[in-house]
């Protein structure tokens, strides 16, 4: 189910812990990656799927472990761990990924597990740490809820960085 649909449905059957959102709350879609909690702006995430068999692309950068078919559509898989220079996430048939629309791109962000939608009071959202290395480079904020902190990823920046690292300057339009 699309996160935006999930938001608008207000389903009473859903986990109350993730559904108590007030007017002053921000919504994030939370995944576990690299042992930590990472959140994305909820409207960017449209679906969560189990990865099927991956088709690997020859000479692809390590953060693009392959593509898979989902409802007849071929989707690229993005491994954020590899992109930020940390270890690769293990990919198995049971691995779940969040399908994220980001500008013109649609990617499946692979995760260790999916937590789902989380409402965070806006007062509990702080600026990211000043570090400019690793995953901190791609954070737009750090949020805190009853389960701990959530690193909020700036997906447009993450995807743009993936493109810039893979394509040498001046050849992007080639």
């Amino acid at each position: 189910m699309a996160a935006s649909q999930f938001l608008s449905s207000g389903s009473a059957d859903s986990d109350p812990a993730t559904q108590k959102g007030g007017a002053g709350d921000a919504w994030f879609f939370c995944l576990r990656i690299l042992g930590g909690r990472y959140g994305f702006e909820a409207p960017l995430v449209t679906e969560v799927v189990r990865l099927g068999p991956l088709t690997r692309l020859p000479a692809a950068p390590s953060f693009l472990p392959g593509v898979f078919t989902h409802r007849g559509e071929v989707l690229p898989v993005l491994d954020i761990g590899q992109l930020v220079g940390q270890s690769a996430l293990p990919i198995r048939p049971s691995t779940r990924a969040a399908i994220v629309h980001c500008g013109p791109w649609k990617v499946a962000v692979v995760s260790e597990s999916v937590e789902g939608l989380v409402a965070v009071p806006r007062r509990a959202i702080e600026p990211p740490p000043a570090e400019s290395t690793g995953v901190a480079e791609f954070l737009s904020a750090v949020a805190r809820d009853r389960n701990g902190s959530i690193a909020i990823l700036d997906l447009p920046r993450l995807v743009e960085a993936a493109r810039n690292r893979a394509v040498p300057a001046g050849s992007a339009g080639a």
Partner: protein
Amino acid sequence: MSDPQNEILMFQVGPRVFAAEVYDVVRIGTVRDVAAENLILDSILGVPFGRERGLVVGGQGDAAERTLVIDQVIGIRGVGADDLHALPPFAAAVMPSGAVTGFVMIDEVPTLLVDLPTLIRERQPAAAAAHAS
């Protein structure tokens, strides 16, 4: 299921199967009599197990024909437009090679579609350098 509209050549390099447009291939033949500088033994598709067969691909303009060494031709299949998928935009944007252009769905499995002229063109500087040395 759509009517077959595109003829696709299926071939194998090492353990993997690839697809290419039939009209990109001038002929299929043995590599025995092909000059070394016109052979492409290793590419982004991998290294073939053997050195027996090749796909001859025409060069652009005055460029000579080049032969991509493969392990075997699996066959030619007619596929409908619905079975052809372009590389997803994100994958296309981050791939260092333009030779993989998309996928052909064969029995619901995506098989990489290779643009052979682009593969040959991208491989030329390395091959020329190797020959010069």
